[in-house]
């Protein structure tokens, strides 16, 4: 490795630069578009230098878009709120259901435990629409169509397997002896779980929660099928926004920027855990 020639170092440098440009360019470009007026966006050739404007963001935040033809209402903030609410609640519910179950799977090898764990895992790999399409018909009958409760329930398909499998791995890594010692000292099962297991698996639970949040936020198809405009998160809302506003490219870009910022920020914050989380602990190194 140390004896790399100059030519090789240059080639490596060029390759890395190309990689960075390819993967960063779209984000940078959309960010730039979000600070431009439609006029500068439509200019050909595309402009690298322009006078930045916050008009797109103010239009989105106030929900009013002034155009030559009149005022247009934008419901984008509503979509953003839906995304926050749906993702946070879904993750909270999934943690509440998933952490005890993960503990059970990790600590007690009970009859059928592996089968159940794998069944739950298989949701991660099943085609979403297989379940979603009949579910729309059921939800209409049950009155769950276009409700937050219905959506949060279905979002468990994303969050639960993730949390179950990642947290289970962390619980398995805690030596059982520590828990036995605490139990022998006369503490109840629940106290052991709360005082010993939970704090020790804390980082894993936090990482799983963050990842589940990112996946819930990024989900598209669940809400596309099950929610109408007032309950839609940003992923679906942004698509509808394109068709409804037609040519307001600056606002669309600003909407995309606002929609991807939370997950990008969280990912950068939690990047240490991403490898393990993304592969459901399959390549624990």
């Amino acid at each position, binding site marked *: 490795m140390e004896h790399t020639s100059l030519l090789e170092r240059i080639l490596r440098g060029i390759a890395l630069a190309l990689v960075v440009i390819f993967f960063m360019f779209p984000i940078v470009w959309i960010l730039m578009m979000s600070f431009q007026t439609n006029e500068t966006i439509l200019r050909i050739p595309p402009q690298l230098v322009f006078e930045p404007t916050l008009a797109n963001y103010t239009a989105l935040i106030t929900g009013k878009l002034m155009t030559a033809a009149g005022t247009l209402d934008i419901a984008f903030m509503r979509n953003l709120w839906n995304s926050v609410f749906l993702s946070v609640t879904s993750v909270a519910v999934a943690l509440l259901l998933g952490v005890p179950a993960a503990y059970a799977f990790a600590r007690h090898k009970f009859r059928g435990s592996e089968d159940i764990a794998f069944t739950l895992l298989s949701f991660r790999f099943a085609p979403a629409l297989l379940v979603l399409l009949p579910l729309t018909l059921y939800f209409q009958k049950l009155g769950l169509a276009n409700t937050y409760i219905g959506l949060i329930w279905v979002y468990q398909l994303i969050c639960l397997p993730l949390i179950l499998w990642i947290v289970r791995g962390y619980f398995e890594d805690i030596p059982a002896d520590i828990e036995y010692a605490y139990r022998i000292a006369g503490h109840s*099962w629940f106290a052991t779980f709360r005082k010993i297991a939970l704090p020790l698996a804390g980082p894993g639970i936090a990482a799983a929660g963050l990842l589940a949040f990112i996946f819930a936020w990024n989900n598209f198809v669940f809400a596309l099928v099950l929610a109408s405009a007032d309950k839609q998160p940003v992923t679906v809302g942004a698509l509808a926004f394109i068709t409804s506003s037609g040519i307001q490219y600056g606002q669309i870009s600003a909407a995309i920027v606002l929609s991807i910022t939370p997950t990008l920020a969280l990912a950068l914050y939690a990047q240490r855990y991403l490898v393990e989380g993304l592969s459901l602990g399959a390549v624990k190194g």
Partner: protein
Amino acid sequence: MTAATIQRNRPSGFRISKRVLPYLLSLPALLVCIGILIPFFTSVVYSFQRYRLSQPWARQFNWGDNYISFFTDPKFWNTLEISLLYAGITVVLELLLGLGIAMLLQKRSTLNNFISIMLLMPLMTAPALAALMWKLMTNPGFGVLSYLASLIGLQDFRWASSPSTALLTVVLVDIWVYTPFIMILLLAGLRSLPTQPFEAAALDGVPRSFVFFRITLPMLTPYILTATLFRLLDSIQQFDIIYAMTQGGPGDTLTVFQVEAYLNFFQSTNVGRSAALMIILWAITYFLSNIFIKNWLRLRERARGQA
């Protein structure tokens, strides 16, 4: 009866509750999921029915007709072909690119770590939103990529709106989003490899191509397998990128399984055909995920054995 046994045992300890406890703990999670399992069986039933939402009165079992008609249905073969093509192309390209980038970034340095963190950003972008970003960039009117294409002589390059380049465009978006996934998995793999074999090879002056094919690749295989199967399972089910970009169009160029099922359900309201499509896709993914889980279990055990 259970209540009585628990009561009787309470003073002496927790023997019974210890047997019941794991079930109690996992029960809520199970109940929530079973509620969602029911639609799966409904799908199976629908797939054996002639069922159109527009003609509910004509709903009846036609047993295998939905499946049998697939054999002579060019639209179905198009769906199968484009799904496999999409999955194959994306996974192969992402694997090659991801491995290449991971090897470029293998050495731990501030710059390399910084770049690998930056490359996470596309992966954390919602695929549907990523498709919209690329849609804006490939807009024939003002899109920067359309402009760049015209600079290299591709006048009026239509990207996703032309049948001949639509697949290329969505594959490009898929590569943009998911290559970092393979990259970070393989990077983690590369950095966890033991150093002795490489040192020994360097001492012996073994050519680098030999080191790569005979040492690096075999040792990296578990990581490559995991990454490939994860991606393959997701890619064959791709919906978000294709739907957000072209809604399966132009025409039926990009009607992969999930997109075709969605359109069958909501546009032609043909529930039966839609369900049959999903069952076939499920069979494919079930087959693949079984291979995956078996490999994974072996790897897990091996990892635990070594640890």
